């Protein structure tokens, strides 16, 4: 059980025509069984691309240029794991389901393809799954088309499909962003509950630190294609080391004063193909000094299990 | 083949056909229906590069004169069809409401009646001359143009520059002709190019059924005349057929190339 479920080491994702143009650089992380790892960062930081690389769904033009990926002790083979041992949940439930097929069709096809269930058995299991994700009246919903369901209901269906084959890992890419706030909380509670009852590890990709505080065990912060900080959730919130993490936390509305204004982070995320020399965050950093513009800080272990890539915290 | 390649290859083919049509009267001044040698001489006979047909006519001369008829009928009927289509489509798209309903029902009516059958009946009723053939083909080809123009007008009429013309009190006729129509023309031109190909193929089909002007040599007529000798002299049918195929191919390529050149935003890759 000490072996991590998913182990990523030295992952580079780059344009397939030019491996030097990298969108993800030298990324390493592990996910343990039953663990919720949150991956946090602004859009364009490489978190979604990483998840697509893990499932072999990188868009044309991008490819894994370097790195070792292992799943359950063996080299990761996305095509064999996708849908069986790794489930995926996408951001927009409104467009994730095929409008031309019933909910039942879309669930049972996974069960029939991966578990070899017969028609009747697959349908029975689909009804179970719909109940498991707490959709009301599964017997009715199973024969309806997605257009008849609300966004929250559709995301529950997507989750049902993701967990249909009892996966070890679910990758949830912004699973609540497209939903109403009240529904967001319900969906997160559902995911956390599934981890408890089924022992599924979850890689939760989000830019919402509120969700992270609520559900995650560990957090990885990414900036410009790179990991800049990683820590268990309490130390990260109590003692953020990287200036970027501190800014992200400051930008998150606190649960107590939900109406407080979001503190914006000044400046733009630099293009991953056109990074400044030195620390990529330096141009936006309010404590940056000369050395930050000179060399890129390495990732260093500051406390046990708490890593950061910043000149100010390097031992 | 690259997109620009389509435009060039199509254009080159068209140029060749136009040249054939233009030079028909110069190179082959005599009547294409005239019997000039023994019948059924194979291509390659000295002085007769493409041989003679079952009535001893020079196939090469017929081919050149056929190019003239095909182009003439294709262009004239397309011009007429585009004219009708623009009028109907512009009125329907600009005025909407009842006018649109009435004109669209009319368009649907013409799309329901099998076009080729309607052309046949028209020609039997009107008799076959160049003018009636052009009329018949135009009468069955305009609905596609009308629909296209209508949809262009429906979207263009909501655009700001049209709205402002209305505000300053410009007349409907001027708005339609000077403001909207020029902006709607690009897709119409592309469609028209393809329509010429369709018209040429339809004319050939009508000729094949014997519905051609008896005084005009056409490629369809040549195929019709040769089909009974196919066992002994297949070249009589193959040669004009290839001419039709190459011409239609050239027009379609040209249309495709034009489409990409005129609507770069629609390019898909």
């Amino acid at each position, binding site marked *: 059980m000490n072996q991590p479920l998913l182990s990523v080491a030295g992952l580079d994702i780059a344009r397939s025509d030019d491996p030097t143009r990298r969108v993800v650089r030298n990324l390493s992380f592990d996910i343990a069984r039953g663990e919720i790892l949150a991956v946090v960062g602004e859009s364009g930081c490489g978190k979604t691309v990483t998840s697509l690389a893990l499932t072999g769904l990188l868009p044309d033009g991008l490819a894994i240029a370097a790195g070792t990926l292992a799943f359950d002790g063996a080299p990761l083979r996305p095509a064999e794991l996708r849908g069986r041992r790794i489930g995926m949940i996408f951001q927009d439930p409104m467009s994730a389901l095929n409008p031309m097929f019933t909910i039942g069709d879309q669930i049972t096809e996974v069960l029939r393809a991966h578990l070899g269930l017969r028609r009747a058995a697959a349908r029975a299991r689909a009804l179970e799954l719909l109940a498991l994700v707490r959709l009301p009246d599964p017997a009715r919903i199973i024969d309806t088309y997605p257009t008849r369901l609300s966004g929250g209901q559709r995301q529950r269906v997507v989750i049902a499909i993701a967990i249909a084959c009892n996966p070890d890992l679910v990758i949830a890419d912004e699973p609540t962003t497209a939903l109403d706030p009240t529904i967001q909380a319900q969906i997160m509670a559902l995911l956390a509950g599934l981890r408890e009852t089924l022992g599924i590890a979850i890689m939760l990709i989000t830019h919402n630190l509120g969700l992270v505080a609520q559900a995650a065990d560990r957090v990885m912060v990414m900036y410009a294609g790179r990991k800049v900080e990683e820590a268990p959730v309490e130390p990260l919130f109590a003692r953020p080391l990287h200036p970027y993490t501190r800014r992200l936390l400051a930008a998150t509305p606190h649960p107590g004063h939900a109406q407080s204004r979001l503190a914006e982070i000044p400046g733009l995320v630099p293009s991953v193909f056109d990074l400044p020399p030195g620390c990529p965050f330096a141009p936006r950093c309010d404590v940056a000094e000369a050395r930050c513009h000179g060399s890129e800080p390495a990732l260093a272990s500051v406390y046990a299990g708490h890593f950061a890539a910043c000149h100010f915290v390097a031992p | 083949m690259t997109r620009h390649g389509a435009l060039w290859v199509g254009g080159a083919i068209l140029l060749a056909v136009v040249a054939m049509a233009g030079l028909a009267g110069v190179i082959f001044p005599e009547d294409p229906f005239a019997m000039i040698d023994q019948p059924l001489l194979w291509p390659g006979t000295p002085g007769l590069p493409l041989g003679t047909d079952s009535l001893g006519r020079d196939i090469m001369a017929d081919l050149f004169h056929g190019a003239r008829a095909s182009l003439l009928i294709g262009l004239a009927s397309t011009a007429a069809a585009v004219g009708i289509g623009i009028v109907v489509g512009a009125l329907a798209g600009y005025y909407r409401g009842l006018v649109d309903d009435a004109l669209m029902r009319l368009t649907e009516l013409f799309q329901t009646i099998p076009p080729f059958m309607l052309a046949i009946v028209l020609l039997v009723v009107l008799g076959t001359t160049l003018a009636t053939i052009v009329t018949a083909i135009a009468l069955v080809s305009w609905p596609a143009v009308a629909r296209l123009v209508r949809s262009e007008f429906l979207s263009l009429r909501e655009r700001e520059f049209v709205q402002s013309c209305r505000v300053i009190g410009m007349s409907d006729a001027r708005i339609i002709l000077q403001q909207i129509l020029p902006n709607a023309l690009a897709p119409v031109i592309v469609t028209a190019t393809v329509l010429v190909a369709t018209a040429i193929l339809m004319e050939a089909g009508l000729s094949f059924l014997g519905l051609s002007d008896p005084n005009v040599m056409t490629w369809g007529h040549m195929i019709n005349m040769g089909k009974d000798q196919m066992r002994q002299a297949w070249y009589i049918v193959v040669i004009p057929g290839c001419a039709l*195929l190459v011409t239609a191919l050239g027009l379609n390529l040209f249309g495709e190339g034009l489409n990409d050149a005129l609507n770069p935003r629609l390019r898909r890759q």
Partner: protein
Amino acid sequence: MKKRTKKLSSVGSALSAESTERAGKKVWLLFSKRSACFLARRLALALLIVLGIAVCNFVLLHMAPGDAADALAGEAGAGDPAYLAILRARFGLDQPLPVQLWHFLLRLVTFDLGYSSRYGQSVASLILERLPATLLLMGTAMTLAVIGGIVLGVTAARFAGRAVDRVISLIVLLLYGTPMFWSGLMLILLFSVRLDWLPAGGMYDMRVRATGLAHVLDIGQHLILPAATQACFFLAVYTRLLRASMLEVLGLDHIRFARAKGMPERRIAFVHALRNALPPLITMVGMNVGTFLGGAVLGETVFSWPGIGRLMFDAVFQRDINLLLSILVLSSVFVVLANLVVDILYVVINPAVELR
């Protein structure tokens, strides 16, 4: 609508076969208020179009040389003033035009299309007798075109920009430019004259007069070339259409999700994406029924296929205007009916459709 669905699913769960239940549900969908409204409007429109077709024919009849009686008489009674007088009286041709139109419509409604002395039977029965042969040929050709178009179009979209796609584009381009009657002649030249594999024309072998299965096989053999000839052009049309709509669908989120579900690529293309790309194809096929029928005149003439198209060619040859007009009317009405069927299909196949 919701209530009905609920009731249905409780009825359905009693059935063991899931597919029967689903088919039942889709038929029920037709009776939902929304669909009923849509179909009623379509029906009204169809009736309007039929009326338009009738008026069109009336106009054509009066454009014909001589008066309508000459046209109606065909070649049989031409030059026989007594017969023409009878015809004029019978069809009210001495009445004012509106009255004549009314008579004309009445005749159409009662299916009284006149009598063909050349064939010795009523025009209506003559056409109906030829209809099955045309339907067989047209149905086969359409099926070939649709299946071929689906396979080629989906394949081209899956490998867009690559060699397969280019080859398919080239085929499409060539088929687009080939005159249909000419490709028929070329097929005869190759497969009948040169190779002697398939018969050059007709619907069955007159000399053998086979029965039972042999008869069916015989017809099948005669069917191959004309069906392929008529399918070619539309194959190109459908390939192109499907490639475009597949490219659109393949970029959608739910296709990415299907990949994430671990579905094989082929299934994603031919099941997930195709189902979404199908509605425009169905619309197109519906719109092409008339063009198919027109093409039948050429196809059936080339292959001496004893259908309506061939009958029309004979009528052209004999300048039998009444027969020509009757074929035109019935073909148009057939197109209207076919379009109604397409509308119904559209509702059945497309659960998310916005009905207008």
